[in-house]
């Protein structure tokens, strides 16, 4: 595993999910949703993928506009992704409130084989795709036998 994901909330979320699962077992259908055994994770669920040329970080950013997302690489070679999610409407009766709002901040320690200048990001359908290229000289190379 080459990219380390620094997320202080992971352990806490894991405990909360475990507690929620236990509660769902106890209360059966009262707390659970129909059609599925488990809920989607809170906002900013993350998946990291790799191939020979680089890495892709996929992060859920539902309802967040492109302008509300900031990416930077600091001097410690950490990729920092910050975003803010604003609630659509405040002055209404809420019958159900499950979605999370507010600030999101994730840090990723980039491995030494990446090119800091070759990081691109695209927001598509509420999913942020951050593409981090490996340095060409360190990429895996196949050698043809003549």
């Amino acid at each position: 595993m080459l990219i380390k994901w620094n997320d202080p909330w992971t352990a806490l979320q894991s405990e909360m999910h475990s507690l929620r699962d236990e509660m769902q077992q106890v209360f059966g259908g009262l707390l659970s949703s129909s059609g599925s055994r488990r809920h989607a994770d809170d906002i900013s669920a993350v998946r990291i993928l790799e191939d020979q040329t680089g890495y892709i970080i996929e992060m859920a950013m539902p309802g967040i506009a492109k302008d509300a997302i900031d990416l930077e690489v600091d001097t410690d070679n950490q990729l920092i992704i910050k975003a803010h999610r604003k609630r659509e409407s405040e002055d209404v009766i809420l019958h159900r409130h499950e979605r999370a709002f507010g600030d999101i901040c994730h840090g990723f320690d980039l491995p030494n084989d990446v090119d800091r200048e070759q990081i691109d990001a695209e927001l598509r359908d509420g999913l942020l795709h951050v593409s981090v290229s490996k340095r060409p000289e360190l990429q895996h190379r196949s050698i043809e036998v003549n």
Partner: protein
Amino acid sequence: MTKSKETTTKTQPSDRANYVSPRVDILELYTEFHLFADMPGVQKHTVELTCANGELSISAPVAFIHNSKRVVLGNSLPEGYRRLFTVDDTVEIEKIAAEMNNGVLKVTLPKKESAQSRRIAISVN
């Protein structure tokens, strides 16, 4: 609408076994309800939204575009989303509308006129 009464789905297509419930907010306004469902990674044209027999059903797959790459960390993104809601008879079923924006599905459920609260103006002499 909707106490969002949770019912059990009768049949689960096997290809949707890894679908999860989207997180939702349900808001009530004077003339309608708004249902917001977080479904990041879902493309608008793949959303299946139906309303029949007093049940509103939402189902959609997540469109992964990097399938050739190896997952090295985190697998918290689901294959899709699915959820059922009970809709009561205060909702005008024929006028339910939906839109998808930045991975959030917004469903508008207008109230029947008889179920709408009425503002009463107070005149001062």
